[in-house]
């Protein structure tokens, strides 16, 4: 096992034994699953005639690598000056001391050192990144290297339990989306994390890095993360996406979360977004936005399941199974009469055990509970507490069913207040 911090600064000698300079950087091809080092960049010692330059030493030209020197098989004249290439990962510049996402630990961490694995294939040395050191061992090595004999340092390190992340769980952050593409960085694994965990990670990143990550994620994942992320960050995130993408993302969000988000935006931006959205979704959102934020109407979601009160269990089941997507936290079916007025609520559990011919009206909970859309939040919370509710229908003045409030909305509300 080799460490990047130990390789940086090693003297390099060519085939004639002449010292060329010192290792200043390692360049790797961002291969999957692990990047492979292709060049040592050697900073040549400049003199009066020549200015110092970075020479590229291909790994195949290395004869031997020890803890004190690198010896080459070629002479200095054969080496060419390093041409910067955005598609190459520069280990010192791009990784050392930078932040990465530890996918397994679900957090953002800082790189103290890189562990490299060396293999000999056909008498040629190959060097692969194996893990990222984020713990005390890496910190000590960085602090004392060059100041304390290597032997002591290794001995000291062996006393401490290392904290490192295998490369498979490392997600690099590159703030420039164009270079991100060239480096082949995909954040696909991040989409598998729970949106709440991903939101926590995003909160820790700087805006540019956050933006770069969002550009690689699909609209649905971004929508879920946006619903979970700290509200104060939302306007800036949407802004950085551009109008068209932002509209796509907001469409994917739950209507109540989308309405909360739009309410936080400057009115001009919110209107532009609504205009850019699918007409149906925009109309729905527009209605939600009419309600004051701190009343039942502002809390409610328009994504709910309502069936005619005259239906029986079989037809209700059929209707539900034909729906393309069920609302989140789906626990209750609302009953409405022919005029769209609320006629009751049936818990989904009852639907499972009831026989197919039972009329839904016989299954409905008693009493019929509801709030009007202009009831204050406090009253809504009290009702959830008093009746131990999972969801509660919201009605307009004429008793028309307008939406539903679910218990997760209440928990979010209470947490924000405390």
């Amino acid at each position, binding site marked *: 096992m080799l460490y990047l911090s130990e390789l940086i600064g090693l003297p390099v000698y060519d085939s004639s034994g002449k010292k060329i300079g010192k290792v200043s950087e390692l360049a790797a091809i961002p291969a999957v699953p692990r990047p492979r080092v292709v060049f040592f960049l050697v900073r040549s010692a400049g003199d009066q005639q020549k200015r110092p330059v970075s020479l590229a030493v291909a790994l195949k030209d290395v004869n031997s690598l020890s803890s004190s020197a690198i010896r080459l098989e070629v002479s200095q004249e054969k080496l060419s000056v390093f041409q910067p290439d955005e598609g190459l990962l520069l280990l010192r510049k791009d990784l*050392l*001391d*930078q*932040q990465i996402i530890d996918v397994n630990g679900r*957090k953002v*961490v*800082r*790189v*103290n050192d890189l562990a490299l694995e060396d293999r000999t294939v056909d008498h040629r040395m190959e060097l692969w990144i194996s893990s990222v050191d*984020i713990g005390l061992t890496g*910190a000590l090595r*960085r*602090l004392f290297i060059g100041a304390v004999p290597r032997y002591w340092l290794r001995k000291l390190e062996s006393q401490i339990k290392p904290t490192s992340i295998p490369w498979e769980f490392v997600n690099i952050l590159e703030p420039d989306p164009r270079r991100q593409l060239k480096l082949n960085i995909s954040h696909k694994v991040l989409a598998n994390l729970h949106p709440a965990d991903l939101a926590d990670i995003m909160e820790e*990143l*700087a*805006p*540019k890095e956050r933006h770069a990550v969002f550009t690689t994620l699909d609209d649905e994942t971004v929508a879920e993360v946006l619903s979970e992320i*700290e509200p*104060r*960050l939302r306007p*800036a995130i949407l*802004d950085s996406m551009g109008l068209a993408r932002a509209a796509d993302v907001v469409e994917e969000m739950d209507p109540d979360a989308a309405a909360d988000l739009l309410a936080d935006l*400057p*009115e001009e931006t919110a209107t532009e977004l609504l205009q850019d959205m699918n007409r149906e979704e925009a109309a729905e959102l527009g209605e939600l936005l009419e309600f004051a934020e701190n009343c039942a109407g502002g809390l409610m979601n328009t994504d709910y399941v309502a069936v005619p009160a005259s239906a029986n269990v079989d037809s209700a089941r059929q209707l539900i199974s034909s729906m393309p997507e069920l609302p989140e936290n789906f626990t209750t079916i609302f009953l409405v009469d022919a005029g769209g007025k609320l006629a009751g609520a049936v818990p989904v559990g009852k639907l499972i055990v009831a026989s197919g011919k039972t009329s839904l009206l016989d299954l409905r909970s008693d009493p019929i509970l509801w709030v009007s859309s202009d009831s204050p939040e406090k009253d809504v919370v009290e009702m959830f507490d008093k009746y131990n509710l999972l969801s509660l229908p919201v009605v307009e003045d004429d008793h028309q069913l307008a939406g539903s409030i679910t218990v997760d909305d209440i928990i979010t509300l209470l947490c924000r207040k405390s």
Partner: protein
Amino acid sequence: MSLIKRWKVRIFILMAVVGPGFITGNVNNDAGGIYTYSLAGARYGYSMLWTLVPILIILIVVQEMSARLGVVTGKGLADLIREEFGFRTTFFIMLSLTAANLANVTAEFAGVASSLEIFGVSKYISVPLVAVFVWFLVVRGTYKSVEKIFLISCSFYITYIVSGILAKPDWLQAAESMVRPTISMDSGFLIMLVGLIGATVAPWQQFYLEAAVVEKGVDQKQYFGSRLDVIFGCVAMIVVAFFIIVSCAATLHVAGRRDITSAADAAAALQPLAGEYASWLFAFGLFNASVFAASILPLATAYTVCEGLGFEAGVNKKFREAPIFYWLYTLLIAVGAGLILIPGLPLVFVSYLSQVANGFLLPFVLLFLLSLVNRSDLMGKYRNSNGQNLVSGFTIVFLIVITLILFFLQSS
């Protein structure tokens, strides 16, 4: 109609970003600050007032750079130093910052001790109690709600403004000092000058301000508001300093009491307003300022150090998740408070040490700040202009010179 609306949006944005700069300014008027301003007024009367003008300019220039760096990069100063200058540099900066801040924390507990001694509470009771209170306040996560109480209590400084006016100071002489600077090569005067600068521009401020701006999520479009916040905070701080000096000049200096040896001496400046209750009022203000700063300093230090060195940090994490953060935080409070309890410890020496530590660290922090804020890959169009570089470059040279003067004066 739309005009009103636009103004509403403006004011809303302002309200949203007014904060970090203002809080930083207020925390800075801590025990050491009040003591230094009082002494400046008592000893030199109105003659040092003019120094507040260059100090204000330095303060605004430096803090504006910190805030701008935070807004544009979205990263803390410790993060940026780590990313751009590597581990070893960061480690030594963090080590000195911890040392300097430990001295500052000690000075805050000295403020707690002397303010409560006015009420007859022994420091052996007050200091441990406050230390435990501060520790729990932050660890239990109740700090945010208490911060408002601290901020409201900071309106105590208004009493200095009222007292300063009631004392019928010689405004003509005060105004003359502002426009006609007098500098004396007397060593006492120079030390006082360094003390004033040390009390206003501190290294930890730059880390704290930038972190607070980032934490708040201010983006580039709101930078207008952030800049106003910084300027407002600096001006408010200097106005308070101005009136403390004026009221001490009009009361203590005029009465010939040229030295301040205890909190009771300094409290006399409030007599025009509060009469015999002056010492109580002063004790309350000093206590609030000390506890406010003692709550923020150890926490800010632990955050900054862990951020820079890559350890987990945050009061929302469990002790096991962020052990170094909690240990550092706890030790800063325990050692800071513990030092005060050593019998016969010269408190003045402690405050001198904290100033020297600050003074030596500050130029380095400013050099890093300046080099970062000039990087076009980080800052884009928000990088420093030549004019800004001139002013901040001059500031750094000035601070280095003045710190060296202080060092030689004290050691000779």
